[in-house]
């Protein structure tokens, strides 16, 4: 961005020292400790000896835990897919709205987004309880009460509810940057709106859509609160298992190994996104030529 050669060192250090020290001491060090613990074993209640053992990682591949990882991936995947289906038309409407409409639609998703996660989850609990509003409505039509809370279904609904803004915002920013003359051309040449969406808008916006998918998938994968409050005993995700190792089971090294497996999955997803972005950036000049 700028040349450093002629800048004064004083300004540089004045700007860099505090954030660099903070991030090292309060972020890099704690994570490194967890990483080291993942190669250790428990001695006492909270005492850990870092022995360099790989036992904890071997235990992660125990079928019980593999199943939970698989389930978490499925939950996050289904959530992302549902969010995409619900969110894409919303983002589309937002892109082509008037200035005023854009602000209103943006506000429409931002207010829930800014509302406390716990409050939103609690609100859903009230709706889905056996004696909740939905079952009340079912009652009017003569259905028996349906157990919805504490099921996998409730977890998916909760994750979609919480993560919808995560997909709409990046989708909107991609669609908003798009060259509208291409859409107009498609419509002028006789394509219908649906055909235009799938044959013109989606291919052009593909890198942005993939990016939006990752931005939804990553936080959904590490969810703790939603499965904890809305899920039943068989809808646990990785985060709940990690929490148990640290708070109740007191097996910190194993919890640390699980945390780092989750971290690696997250970083893998981020890496895929970065590769996608780079490929898209490389493809663009060729496409124009």
């Amino acid at each position: 961005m700028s040349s450093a050669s002629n800048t004064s060192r004083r300004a540089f250090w004045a700007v860099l020292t505090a954030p660099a020290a903070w991030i090292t001491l309060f972020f890099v060090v704690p994570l490194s400790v967890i990483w080291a613990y993942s190669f250790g074993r428990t001695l006492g209640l909270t005492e850990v000896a870092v022995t360099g053992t790989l036992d904890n990682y071997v235990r992660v591949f125990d079928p019980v835990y593999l199943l939970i990882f698989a389930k978490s991936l499925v939950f996050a995947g289904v959530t992302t897919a549902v969010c995409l289906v619900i969110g894409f038309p919303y983002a589309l409407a937002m892109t082509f709205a008037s200035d005023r409409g854009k602000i209103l639609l943006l506000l429409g998703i931002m207010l829930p987004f800014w509302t406390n996660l716990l409050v939103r989850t609690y609100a859903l609990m009230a709706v889905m309880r056996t004696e909740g509003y939905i079952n009340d409505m079912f009652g009017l039509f003569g259905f028996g009460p349906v157990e919805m809370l504490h099921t996998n279904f409730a977890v998916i609904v909760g994750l979609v509810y919480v993560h919808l803004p995560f997909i709409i915002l990046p989708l909107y920013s991609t669609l908003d940057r798009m060259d509208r003359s291409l859409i107009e051309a498609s419509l002028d040449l006789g394509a219908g709106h649906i055909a235009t969406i799938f044959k013109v808008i989606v291919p052009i916006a593909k890198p942005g859509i993939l990016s939006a998918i990752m931005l939804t998938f990553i936080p959904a994968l590490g969810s703790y609160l939603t499965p904890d409050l809305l899920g039943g005993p068989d809808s646990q995700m990785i985060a709940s298992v990690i929490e148990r190792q640290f708070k109740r089971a007191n097996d910190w090294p194993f919890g640390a190994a699980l945390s780092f497996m989750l971290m690696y999955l997250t970083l893998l997803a981020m890496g895929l996104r970065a590769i996608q972005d780079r490929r898209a950036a490389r493809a663009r000049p060729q496409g124009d030529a």
Partner: protein
Amino acid sequence: MATASKPLDSKPGPLEYSRRWPLRLWVGAVILFLYLPLASLVVFSFNDSRRTIRWEGFTLDWYGTMWNDSALIDAFTNSLTIAFISMLFSVVLGALTAIALWRFRFPGKGLFDGAVTLPIVVPEICMGVAMLVFFGQIVPWPRDLVWPFDLGAIIIAHITFSFPFVAVVVRARLASFNREMEEAARDLGASELRALWDVLLPHVRPALISGGLLAFTLSLDDFVITFFTSGPNTVTFPVKIYSMVRFSVTPEVNAASTVLMLITIALTAIGMKLQGRDLAQGH
């Protein structure tokens, strides 16, 4: 925009997707899905019944119960204190991070950039347990300090996950900065730091405000990381609500949730207003 000048009852133009009924219906359904649970939560905080489902009449009793619940009020005070201190630190650290990354080229820049981006993407649970171990084993935070110093561990954790967000907001704003302004200040004899302070700071002020409000809300909103750093005497509002939700569902939880929602909405409104005024003032 051209669309604004058209009469409302005209047929929608080819690109006016937002005025086509299938999309309108869809958007309406999404809004209902997002707001209905929250709206019913608010409505039933005024319900004169312990059973939270049927409407029995209007009352403010639950807000009274909440007001007299000293544990809840303490948790609330803690949350606001933490959010305020975290906001101040996050704005400073976030602005410094953004300026460092925007203005200077230095060895290890990529590493620094990665380190300050990581807190945004790391799963909350991982950061939570890291903080639990750090403040439990490595640097034990004294439990019996006088308020608000007993909140130190939580505040530090909150600053750590908030300031990278502020940095992102400030960096976006810096991208539109005209470097010639700073050069002009330097030509007129200002030192490097002086030029940054006098010319750059006014430019990024809207970003500092929205970044600060973001940091405040992130701190007020956080449950997972706080859950792992808080002790029995350092309970925050979300952690308190969590234990209430877990052990007993009463309309008092609805009242507490409504208060939290109102604060967030008020903060957002203030933020938007301030930003709007700042933008109107000559940008």
